[in-house]
């Protein structure tokens, strides 16, 4: 690779500054790290509950989001239809509206007649596991659709046309050509959506509350620890969340890197 010119060396400096900023913040946690508290927090039943709840809720929310996002992203990528532009714009909704406001909207919805009917006749969402999943689902859905649409956009439509001239139905063409070629985007969408759901706080707090050993996801647990001025305990939980998130991202890079270079 060619050496960058003088002007572009500044851009490398900027990239290293970004790394230093985040790494510095994480390293600064160690100032308050107490090995005994870390051990105690890591092996406590409450932390184990938070980890289990976070992993389960994030996984269910991500799978549900992908179930809806895959066909929606495909339609947005391939078809021109009434309401398409509005649908694309709405994908930004969870980004421009803060998660807390999004959670409040969900909570308000369950206080109107339709929301009440849903809660009474289907699943009770507010202050329960279903509420956590719903809050995370609503928060990550837009991101999942946007990432998957980008993945489908990368697959030339012409390949689907060729598959159809070769006798494949649209469904067969989708599963044998489009989906395998969008595989990397699909994996990346799953992992990033899952990581975002795992770290979701604002909407979860609004919809499910912050009840210890009930709706206490890892971010809620961090919030509760900090509220009780337990800095060492907070640091221990943050490190757990960071470790899970970084492991997921590292795994994603390995998987994507391997399939790209296969």
């Amino acid at each position: 690779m060619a050496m960058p010119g003088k002007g572009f060396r500044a851009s490398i400096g900027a990239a290293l500054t970004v790394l230093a900023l985040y790494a510095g913040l994480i390293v600064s946690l160690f100032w308050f790290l107490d090995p005994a508290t870390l051990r105690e927090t890591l092996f406590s039943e409450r932390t184990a509950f938070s980890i289990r709840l976070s992993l389960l809720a994030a996984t269910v929310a991500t799978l549900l989001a992908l179930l809806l996002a895959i066909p929606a992203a495909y339609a947005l990528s391939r078809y021109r239809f009434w309401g398409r532009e509005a649908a694309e714009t709405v994908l930004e909704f969870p980004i421009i509206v803060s998660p807390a406001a999004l959670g409040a909207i969900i909570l308000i919805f369950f206080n109107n007649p339709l929301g009440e009917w849903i809660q009474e006749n289907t699943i009770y969402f507010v202050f329960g596991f279903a509420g956590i999943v719903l809050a995370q689902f609503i928060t990550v859905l837009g991101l999942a659709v946007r990432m998957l649409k980008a993945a489908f956009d990368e697959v030339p439509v012409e390949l689907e046309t060729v598959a159809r001239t070769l006798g494949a139905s649209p469904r067969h063409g989708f599963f044998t050509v489009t989906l395998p070629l969008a595989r990397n985007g699909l994996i990346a969408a799953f992992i990033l959506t899952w990581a975002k759901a795992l770290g979701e706080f604002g909407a979860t707090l609004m919809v499910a509350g912050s009840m210890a050993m009930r709706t206490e996801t890892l971010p809620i647990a961090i919030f509760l620890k900090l509220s009780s001025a337990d800095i060492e305990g907070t640091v221990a939980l943050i490190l757990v969340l960071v470790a899970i998130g970084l492991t997921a991202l590292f795994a994603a890079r390995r998987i994507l890197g391997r399939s790209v270079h296969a």
Partner: protein
Amino acid sequence: MLELETLSARAGGFRLDGVSLTVGAGECHAVLGPSGSGKSTLLAAVLGTLPVSSGHVRLAGQDITRLPVEHRHLGYVPQQLGLFPHLSVRDNVRYSARARRVPEAEYRPLLDRLTEITGIGALLDRRVSTLSGGERQRVALVRALAANPRLVLLDEPFTALNESLRRELWWLMKDLQRERGLTVLLVTHDLTEAYFLADHITVLIDGRQEQSGAKATVYRRPASEPVARFLGLKNLYPARRLEAGIVDCPALGGRLAASGDAAGDGETLLAIRAEHVALRQPDDPPRDGETRLTGRFEAVLDLGEAALLHFRADSGALLEVRCGSRVLRKYGWQAGSPGTVGLPAADLFILRR
């Protein structure tokens, strides 16, 4: 075999307007036109990826206008070839058999034969990304033909190749067409490619079918000014038809004999192809039906196997003349040399403005 009946279709703001053509069984028909002329729209309508607004597409007598793509039994080779990059060459060429659930015993003999003719046997276990341009072209052809299609659609598949590889693949396509009796609809902007591969040519310009016919007719007698200009004809001069076979063309010296009466009365254009303008010596005896013009060569360009000359007649008309390089070298014409050219009446023709 393939019959398009007043086919119209819309693609965005573009409209393809009432195209009618017939491709006989075992024939190759080229649809020729500049960028934005409607070639791709026509192809998409035949493929079935673009809804037809009016007219019909018939294949072997069956109306397929509303038939889904996968039920049309077409072989399609697009410009970018459309090879599936996640599959091996072997899986690419047997994709059709698998999609249609054809038992291996049924498709194997044809696939083996195609593999043999095109010489891709050694490539079967390779990934598409490792193939050269020519190899990719061969694989795309085999994949399209392995489906035993009723009609093969070629969308400028040889455009990206260098000249010698292009010619090699044209010959291969010819061989395949002859051996398999293929019916082919070729879309291209390249006249040489169309002339090499096709029996008949349709010229599309701005979504309209300007001319259809045997390739020699379309090449030698373009029916209108847009077709003539697209086919690279530079020698076009305003003229007025006086009577059958006679026009008045001031630029070429006045009253002249010409063919192409179908153009009708009144204002018209007189044309002659560059290679039909005869280079003469001043003392050459006059020939029957030939108009002689004197003037000077303004530019002389040796292209290797041929030469292009710009000749300014004393009347002020500029003519493009094409001759063999050996002729140029023999007579030694240069820019500024005086010269004489002959315009045979048989090669002068009238066309629509």
